[in-house]
């Protein structure tokens, strides 16, 4: 894992997020700590409802009532600038404005919700640029055309005059990605960006994110359920369970030799080629009586990955080449 702060673009330390409901407090995120190295892709995987989206929203300062960040710090390290401590910014702090869009941008799961139906896509992307940079509209349009071309929208000059409904689902998703990348954010958060797409278009979008990432050095936080996408895209993985990270390491460490029982169960549950019509292993069938509820602090294993297990069990862990 990357631990040198200078080399990180994001550092989350002891994050707690809670929701006040009529039936009591839902602790959606508990004591989450991780860092994303500059230029690296970190995948956040785990149970549905385990707090992945809430973690992402916290980075963007988008947690709304009845939700509240109840503890911890989130720090962004912009290249060549002072670090920004996200959760200490006041609601009117101008840096909050920088944070959303120019430092960090987020691709939401449903592309439709990120696009306005009554504005052309060109105007919408221009708007995203002009709110963050001083330039003439003409200049911004050149950038828009360039970016649309990069995300594989043909004849961008013409198509930027069209409205979202005139594009297919896969194209709309690429437009949202263009919008997210046009301000060259230091960190891109992608929350299930390809779940609604067929695998051919998914492959196109993954390649696109990879290419842009290579070219611009963007760091990525990639939230997904698809372990295939994790294996192909990410450098590092954090596995969440009930609001906590239970295992974190390189992709090869975690996917090839999972240590935490929850991670083992998660990987066993992927339908394999030979599994047709059989019952799939579930977490409870894999984990059995093993206790996965006790929140042991994350400790480093012999291969450097972090895992939430009792110390003696960590000592027995095998080593994996990363």
């Amino acid at each position, binding site marked *: 894992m990357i631990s040198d702060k200078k080399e990180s673009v994001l550092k989350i330390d002891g994050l707690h997020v809670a929701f006040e409901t009529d*039936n009591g407090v839902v602790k959606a995120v508990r004591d989450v700590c991780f860092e994303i190295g500059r230029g690296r892709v970190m995948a956040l995987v785990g*149970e549905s409802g385990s707090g992945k989206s809430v973690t992402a929203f916290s980075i963007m300062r988008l947690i709304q009532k009845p939700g509240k960040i109840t503890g911890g710090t989130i720090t962004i390290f912009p290249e060549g600038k002072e670090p920004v401590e996200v959760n200490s910014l006041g609601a009117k702090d101008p840096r909050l404005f920088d944070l959303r869009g120019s430092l960090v941008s987020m691709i939401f799961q449903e592309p439709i919700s990120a696009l306005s139906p009554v504005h052309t896509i060109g105007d919408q992307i221009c708007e995203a640029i002009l709110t963050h940079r001083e330039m003439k509209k003409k200049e911004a349009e050149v950038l828009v055309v360039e970016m649309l071309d990069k995300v594989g929208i043909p004849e961008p000059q013409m198509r930027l005059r069209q409205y979202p409904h005139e594009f297919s689902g896969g194209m709309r998703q690429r437009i949202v990605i263009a919008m997210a990348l046009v301000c060259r954010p230091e960190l891109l958060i992608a929350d299930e960006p390809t*779940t609604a797409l067929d695998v051919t278009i*998914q*492959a196109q979008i993954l390649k696109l994110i990879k290419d842009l990432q290579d070219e611009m050095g963007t760091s990525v936080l990639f939230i997904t*359920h698809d372990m*295939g996408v994790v294996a192909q895209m990410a450098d590092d993985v954090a596995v969440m369970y009930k609001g906590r990270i239970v295992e974190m390491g390189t992709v090869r460490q975690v996917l090839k030799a999972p240590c935490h029982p929850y991670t083992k169960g998660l990987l066993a549950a992927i339908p394999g080629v030979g599994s*047709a019509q059989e019952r*799939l*292993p579930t977490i409870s069938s894999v984990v059995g009586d093993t206790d996965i509820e006790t929140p042991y602090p994350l400790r480093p294993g012999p291969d450097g990955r972090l895992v939430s297990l009792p110390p003696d069990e960590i000592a027995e862990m095998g080593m994996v080449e990363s």
Partner: protein
Amino acid sequence: MSEDFSKYPAFIHDSFPAEEGGQDDLSKPLLRVRDLRKFFPVYGQGVVRKKINEVRAVDDVSFDLYRGETLGLVGESGSGKTTCARVILRALDATAGSVHFDSEVLGEVDLVQMNGKQLKLLRREMQMIFQDPFSSLNPRMTVGDIIGEPMLIHRLASGKALEKIVTELLEKVGLKSEHRERYPHAFSGGQRQRIGIARALIMNPSLIVADEAVSALDVSVQAQVINLLQDLQEEFHLTTIFVAHDLSVVRHICNRVAVMYQGKLVEIGPTESIFEKPQHPYTRRLLASIPSPDPDVKLNFSEAVVESV
């Protein structure tokens, strides 16, 4: 995509045995879809909205669906899978074609020809699990009311009895009984999807159309829901059309697979035959694009990725 796969013929790995005679009742199809079409008009910009074109969302689709089987419906995004499913269940009216359904209450009927009253009778037997868990749940109803509503509408249960059924179902789909009192916004994407599944299952339907029913779920909950669907299939002889993008799930759960491309069915056949010997070039492209969960098996992006149109 620059390559146009529509010029290739459709590949049908299996014929329609029911039409060749010699079939006993058991293998009589529950559903016979023939030459189904759904075209959407495209209007011009003028004051008088003149139809200037049409989108051929479903274009002459034919297939049989046998009792107890799960048919996977896969294909490009925008190829007409959801539209096809909605037309079959008459959530949309067909432009042309027929959908013969072997109903428990009405006998064999053509769903395309049914009137509102007949459809209401048939609704209990056919249920849909929707693609979008965010917009398909009424935000002002509690989860318990959402799941129980179909039972109330059809006057099958109410009060404590209904509460008990709802609680059982919640547990079956991996939620808790106390979730009954909460509203949809308080749930994550995957949790909402399970609410939709519970709502569809409460009526004990004979036909379920599941549109991306498990795609928002993490693999462990997904496994639970898949096992649940398979159990119900055995228990109630449930017949399912399973629309999905995740081909490993399709391979696991489906007996047969149908592949759509630009409104047409381009290939249909037994699951193993589709995965082992795909015939249509679009099917091959689709299979080549599946990312492997093994980090040492790299997806060949150049094989999978084509220049986009």
